[in-house]
């Protein structure tokens, strides 16, 4: 059996602005993860172009993409992906040690409300706390763009809200362009813009006049 090529995205035209919080909404398999991977420099489109502050990422090689991720992108994953052998502080430090203009790990952890959990290992933290460490790790480098793939997917509603609050605060205070992928429509209310992805293309974009605070969101 040879390689089967699947067209995950086609004709996507998408812009993300400084300070903006965008929710990408769509069912699984709609192509939203592929879009996020391309935005985050994990993947390259087979056709079309991706630009970040004037840099053409679609032409970038592996080394350049690594450089881009290292300095410009903050990632938050559904399953946190913390390093189990490092404490909360060290999980953040592992990124700040290689970034150009990072904040202190303690500072980043304070932003997500974990200043009293600095020396805990992931196995000593709850799911929500682990995800907040992940957010702290993502933002500590002061990234240009923060990409979150189902950040509340593995959490219950109450814990999820705490995580969203952390995301919202970072977006507001640091002005980091933030894209959140989810299939949870309730989360869309906290966004500036909501992008509906289905079947590999952008079905519609709606703009929220007022961003709801995460604390007002339930699911």
């Amino acid at each position, binding site marked *: 059996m040879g390689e089967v090529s699947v067209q995950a995205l086609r004709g996507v035209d998408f812009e993300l602005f400084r300070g903006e919080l965008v929710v990408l909404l769509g069912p699984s398999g709609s192509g939203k*993860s592929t879009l996020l*991977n391309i935005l*985050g420099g*994990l*993947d390259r489109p087979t056709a079309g172009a991706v630009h970040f502050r004037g840099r053409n990422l679609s032409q970038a090689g*592996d*080394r350049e993409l*690594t*450089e*881009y*991720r*290292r*300095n410009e*992108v903050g*990632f938050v*994953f559904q*399953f946190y*992906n*913390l*390093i*189990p*052998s*490092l*404490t909360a502080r*060290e*999980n953040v*430090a*592992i*990124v700040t*040690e*290689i*970034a150009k203009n990072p904040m202190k790990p303690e500072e980043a952890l304070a932003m997500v409300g974990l200043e009293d959990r600095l*020396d805990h*290992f*992931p*196995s000593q933290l709850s799911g929500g706390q682990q995800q907040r460490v992940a957010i702290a*790790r993502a933002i500590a*480098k002061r990234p240009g763009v923060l990409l979150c*793939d189902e950040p509340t997917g*593995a959490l219950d509603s109450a814990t999820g809200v705490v995580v969203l609050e952390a995301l919202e605060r970072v977006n507001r205070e640091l002005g980091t362009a933030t894209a959140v992928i989810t299939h949870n429509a309730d989360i869309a209310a906290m966004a500036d813009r909501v992008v509906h992805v289905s079947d590999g293309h952008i079905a519609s974009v709606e703009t929220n006049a007022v961003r709801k605070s995460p604390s007002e969101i339930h699911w």
Partner: protein
Amino acid sequence: MRAINRKLFRDLWRMKGQALAILLVIASGVATAVMSISTNDSLRLTQAVFYRDYRFADVFVSMKRAPQSLAQQIEAIPGVLQAETRVVAAARLEVENYADPITGMIVSLPGNRPPLLNRLFLRSGRLPDPDRENETVVSETFALAHTLHAGDTLSAVINGRRRTLVISGIALSPEFIYPIAPGSLIPDFAGYGILWMARKPLGAAYGMEGAFNDVALSIAPGTNPRDVVDRLDELTRRYGGRGAYARADQISHRYLSEEFKQLEQMAFLFPAIFLGVAAFLLNVVVTRLIATQREQIAILKAFGYRNVDLAFHYLEFVLLIVAAGSLVGIGAGVWLGRNLSEMYLDFYKFPFLLYELTPEAVALAVGISAGSAIAGTLVSLIRAARLAPAEAMQPASPGRYHRGLLEVVAFAGRLGQPTRMIIRNLERRPVKALLTVIGASFAVAILVSGMFFTDAVGLMIDVQFKLANRYDLTVSFTEPTARRAAYSLSALDGVEHIEPFRSVPARFRAGHRTYMTSLDGHPPGARLRHLLDDRFERVTLPPEGVLLTDALADLLQIRPGELLTVEVLEGARPVRRVPVVGTIKEYVGVFGYMDLSALNRLMREGDLISGAWMTTNPSTRDGLFAKLRQMPRVAGATMQAKALANFQETMAQQMLTFAFFNTILAGVVAFGVVFNSARIALSERARELASLRVLGFTRGEVAYILIGEMALLTFAALPVGLLIGRGIAAFAIRNVQTDLFRVPLVIHPSTDAFAVGVVLVSALISVWLIKRDLDRLDLVEVLKTKE
């Protein structure tokens, strides 16, 4: 094929790299076992068949001269089956176009009938015609060394008279499988020849008509050879008996027995290492396999597979690898065994080689490898079987880490996070880390313990031939001779320096312990022959008393200051009590040493010498040899240099072969351990490492975490391996501390460096393979899956 078996094969295929690495380690274990066991079996079988078919005697004695009538009394000793009286003559041999001196021993054959004992295996030609006076059979080693064939001639000086002998055949004897000249330290194939002649002409030439000077006996099963030896000593005493000895003390037989002891040890030591490592690797791999297949196990159980089915499923995984490894190992072992057996024929001159691989040997090798593999994985198998389905459906809980070493070490604050990851990982599984270190250290140890032998033999040779023996030529006389004979030798052209010596056969006795060897008299302040202490410093020979080789003092359990009974087996056969005044260090043979004059006083024979050591001028040496040949009293001359060179060359070739296989085997172990550890670490931490790549770590930075851990373990293994290697080497030489030779425990830095180098190279290869896998990490895929 059942679906679960398909799963088995696919799992194996997916893990083919690791499976192959383990297979090779098992194959190495089985191969070394099969090789050593089959070589040992084959050489023993060959020896047994050669001894039986060619009637190797049980008891031996030589004497000065005994009348033929003594034969009946010898035959009448209880337990004696057959007695073959012989004439054994020392001779000087001369072969055309070979200038160096050759000494020889000519043994009589009955002539009119085949020998009762110690029959000859004729490689070519025929036995001497008893009616012709000048026919001889030549030993194969000597014939090969001089490319002599049946029909060729050579000269022999017997009792001062030169004869031209015609070679009627080329033969081998069970008596001279290890053809070493009496008193020699190494075999000299060109410089020492064994010949056989018919009894009548040899007896006539040697002045032994109606007499004999050597007997070989066979004894009935159940007879104690000790009793026969004692009786034989009584009977031969008045005929100048040199002391009877049983087969166990026969020199060629002794060397063979020592060799077998070492082979037996090898048959157990190296396979044990390989199979231990294999068991550890299987444990690690199977534990990881079961960990990654928790959910599959749960699902299979949910669908009704029994505990025993699952345990058996994973057991099959193990046994398939063992079976494949055993097959490869048996094949390689047979090939190696044949080659090793043939290599032994370089030194041990069997006429044929009966290679045999017994089903028992195969069963033992395979059984032990399967047993150790099962032992290594049993706990994991049981755990897999016992896994409760509901629990197994849940992902395994995240690894628990604790603050540890990092928090107590002062410089820890300055360590980067990747380095912390490495240290915490090792701290979390200290036993696994330790076993990995031990596993890799055995690779170093195999090399050190396999190759130190070259260093040890090098030291033995240096001490014996450079520090102790400083002459290049030994001349011996047919009879003890007045000391002034040395002066006539010193006048010969080409002799630079000469010193006389006396050597008498003697039996040393201390309490109930006895040992038969020679007692040597050296002139005071001898320059050409030094006696050495433990530090290889020169020992001055005291004017009275005897110095013993340290091993002989141990053997007789006698200490300096105590009295040793010396029974001389020559001349007037004096029996004297002599104080032991000290011990000296020697690696080959065991002897007693006295001041030359003191020895002569003990003998009460006047100022006699047995021979002389010389340093000679190489440019005039051939002329000197020619002159020595003209001197009837000169029984022979021995040049050690050429024999030593040949011995070292053969030895070096063998060692090179050993080093080659050792390197492969150790490389397999190092690769198996490092590659498997790294592969498993990669599988356990793929997600973690991919996350770091996503976070902007370069390939190199991510590789550092994984490879750094392997490097740390490998570097930790190096000193441990050097230590274990010394332990194994010490264990291995424990059995070769005999009166024949003592192997010292010396390991050159170059041996250590080589061992370290081989292990580093195979670790590098493993790391390179892992780096390729690491570079292929699918960043996107790994983030989607939960642990």
